[in-house]
């Protein structure tokens, strides 16, 4: 009815094409805004692949608390290389290995660390996020998490070399869900090879950093 009225009233109006054009424009803008707001909120969730339940652990640690952490150099999604030794003497280092990009638990582990920057800084710590995915996949995945404050590193080639150095490379080529806290001297002070199906609480990391700083 409203449309009929609109049509009758304006069908001989010279301004009609301009008016219709403007209305169409408004419809398109509104729809784009509506669709984009819906999509941006769901994009990460929609791109998740669920591997189902996995054996909690499938590897044997090659390092222990008190050992010197094996040094490594890996490419980051920013395009530069990052070495563990870059931080020695300057920062405590927390390494978060997660099994795989675009999987359920991993996709909501680093976003939590992303809002904890102040807490890491309080303990003079940097965080390194590592998976065995290749750099482009890691880039695409972490882009959906917003602007991560910590380096994200790819242990893709030689495949899983760093994960294997720590003894957390599983038989199918992904890493365990594991946390290592390394002090400024390069000594491993905390290890949590977590059940791969569950997200470790941040408490373990923070307590380990507290222990280092209060020593």
């Amino acid at each position, binding site marked *: 009815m409203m449309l009929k009225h609109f049509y009758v009233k304006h069908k001989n109006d010279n301004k009609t094409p301009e008016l219709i054009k403007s209305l169409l424009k408004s419809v398109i803008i509104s729809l784009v805004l509506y669709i984009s707001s819906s999509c941006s909120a769901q994009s990460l969730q929609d791109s998740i692949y669920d591997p189902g339940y996995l054996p909690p652990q499938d590897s044997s640690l090659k390092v222990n608390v008190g050992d010197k952490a094996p040094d490594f150099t890996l490419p980051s999604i920013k395009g530069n290389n990052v070495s563990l030794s870059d931080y020695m003497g300057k920062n405590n280092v927390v390494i978060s290995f997660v099994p795989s990009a675009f999987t359920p638990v991993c996709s909501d582990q680093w976003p939590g660390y992303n809002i904890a920057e*102040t807490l890491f800084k309080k303990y003079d710590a940097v965080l390194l996020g590592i998976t065995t995915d290749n750099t482009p996949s890691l880039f695409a995945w972490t882009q959906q998490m917003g602007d991560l404050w910590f380096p994200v590193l790819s242990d893709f080639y030689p495949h899983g070399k760093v994960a294997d150095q720590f003894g957390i490379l599983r038989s199918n080529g992904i890493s365990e869900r594991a946390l290592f806290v390394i002090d400024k001297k390069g000594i491993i002070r905390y290890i949590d090879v977590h059940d791969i199906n569950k997200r470790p609480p941040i408490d373990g990391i923070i307590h380990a950093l507290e222990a280092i700083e209060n020593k």
Partner: protein
Amino acid sequence: MMRVYYFFLCALIIFVHGCVTYTDWDTSDQKLDSSPIFNTRLYPLSPQDANYLQLSETRNSVLLPLLQADVIILEFFNMYCIKCQMFQPRINELYQLSQSQQYRDKVKIIGIGAGNTDMEVSLYKEKYSVAFPLFADPQLEVSENYRVRLLPYFVVIKRSSTGEFKIVYSDTGGFYDAQTFLRQTQK
């Protein structure tokens, strides 16, 4: 004239959007299950939070039926959930609106960190400057009572005319407009 049509068109789109997404209010007794309310003990309760909830500052935990408010809004969140992080400023806005004279004593907001530890909830509270009480639910006991699904998840509990609390709204997502959502709780 063009502006008038533009205005009505935008209003129509916003109205349709609102209808499609936010129509889960239910004041009938059909979907109500009041038992979880009475099983929900939340702790630890800080003196500031006790003050906000109009309880004695010496209390260290709270059961929802103890509250004097007519409406309790529960926000289920998780520190690791991106959508929760993105939506938190809107809930803070809801809290600010609820502090107006009109709602101050009638509406109370409580956040539940589904699957979070006390430390994670504290971190989240500080990061987003959340002024209302947040409680950890590491074993998901509270969240499972309320059958929480995807986060963020909201439950609105309202005191009925007979003085009993009942759930009038529960859904994943959030709200389009804080003022409208708050007004809806009063209907």
